[in-house]
């Protein structure tokens, strides 16, 4: 059991190392591309046929994290702008904290990316689509927050092995545990004692007791309906 797992993971580790050695020299300059698929040569971010192609590099991973933090910040801002009528004072205070944390994460990643941020040349930021969520009730808001936070935790856990820079690994870990604290909090509010339930923590086998992990492709699928562009994470999957 352990042998099989070890062998396959070892293979992945080596592949990652080999690839990065090559990618490190070439991918650094290949910034994330927001490519319009239509006839218009000017990319139009609100056009649903546009796509975001994440480069197979640390910059690509950081851009995915940046997109997730943008998404979370926009979500919490939307809730804060119009709290559900059954939100308590404690709910409101918590959501202001959550909004502030995600804005801080977003601006931090944007600063770290600098000119490599995917949206550096966009005149209008991506408009996220939260219509799938019910944001007029406390239950609906917490359920939506649970979905977003669990995706965030899984995404950061999946980025660790793909990140080449030790500095970025350390920095992303600083964000990851805060996201996990958020996730546990909103889960407990949605359903008492569900902070680490079996839908996020592996219950059996050799990886029992471990939190959710999502590959970049899985993350892209999970947030596809919320983002107005097609997310292409193929290059990240090679890391």
């Amino acid at each position: 059991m352990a042998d099989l797992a070890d062998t396959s993971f070892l293979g992945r580790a080596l592949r990652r190392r080999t690839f990065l050695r090559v990618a490190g020299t070439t991918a650094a300059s290949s910034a994330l591309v927001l490519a319009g698929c239509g006839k218009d040569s000017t990319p139009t971010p609100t056009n649903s046929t546009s796509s975001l192609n994440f480069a197979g590099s640390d910059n690509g991973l950081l851009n995915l994290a940046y997109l997730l933090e943008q998404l979370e910040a926009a979500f919490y801002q939307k809730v804060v702008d119009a709290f559900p009528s059954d939100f308590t004072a404690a709910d409101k205070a918590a959501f202001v904290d959550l909004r502030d944390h995600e804005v801080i994460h977003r601006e931090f990643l944007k600063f770290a990316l600098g000119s490599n941020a995917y949206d550096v040349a966009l005149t209008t930021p991506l408009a996220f689509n939260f219509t799938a969520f019910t944001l007029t009730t406390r239950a609906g808001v917490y359920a939506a927050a649970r979905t977003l936070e669990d995706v965030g935790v899984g995404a950061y856990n999946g980025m660790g092995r793909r990140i080449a820079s030790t500095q970025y690994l350390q920095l992303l870990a600083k964000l990851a545990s805060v996201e996990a604290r958020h996730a546990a909090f909103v889960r407990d509010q949605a359903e008492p004692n569900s902070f680490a339930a079996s839908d996020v923590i592996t219950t059996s086998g050799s990886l029992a007791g471990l939190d959710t992990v999502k590959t970049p492709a899985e993350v892209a699928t999970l947030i596809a309906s919320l983002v107005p562009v097609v997310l292409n994470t193929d290059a990240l999957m090679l890391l």
Partner: protein
Amino acid sequence: MDFLNLLARLADLDTPTLPAAAPRRTALSQLGKAGTALLPALLTGLALPAAAAAAAPQDTRTRLDALRLALQLELLENEFYSRALGLVTGFSAVPFSATEKTALQTIQRHEAQHVTLFQRLITDAGSALEPAARYDFTGSKNGTQPALYPDIQTNPDTFLQVAQLLEDAGVRAYKGQVEFLQTDAYMLEAALRTHSTEARHASHIRTMRRQRGASVKSWVSPADASITTPGSGAAKVYEGEDNATQYVNIGTILTKVPFDSTLPINVGTPALTAAQILAKVAEAFDEPVNAITATALLQLFTY
């Protein structure tokens, strides 16, 4: 736990150019053997002065060091919750409500699973497990000094206070070790997934305390009512957590992130004061602790 310091020193002897292509099993096995062979030579150095230990380099720890620290942490946490749940002979269960007990059972189960995981990772690599530590969660070191938490086995509030200390410390300890596992994708991912599980535990323990009347957020905040005495050993759990200054390389230049000046993070209405927004920055980043600090925290409850 001076053995950890010894391992940290032994790590100096580990060649950093260990063949990357060598199977992990072999590589770690070599580390284990090197440690054993060199042990007698270094035994005289066991009683390292604290200053020397503190000066030990932090960038030379091996994967084995990181895994062993994780295992020590998980063993301690598992014993801590098992005693509170009445699962250990000689310790009666701490009186919790049914809902609270359910949560603690969930956490204990995870800690036991983490113990199994790290024991497997260590032994699969051909390394030996260390003898189990002896625990005293009152902090009296088996009655040899005044207890820090004399009613921990009978008072739920005291128990949850220490639970918060341990979970928050655990999150910081894992964060300090992940860099040493970066050469092994499997171990790194296992540690990161354990790290976020511990963060969920920490958040929930904080929520439980808040529900019992404590002034504490589910994330580490400068606004939390302090649960440690300044200068005490336990205070190390939160030392540096109020940090609001981050650095990141821009190109090759290590650059301070301008949270206190140009970044547009103060978006609320009305806007927060400078001190208030920096407190939010501190909340938004959990900080690591190194192995020496983590070990010192474990030592509060071992003898």
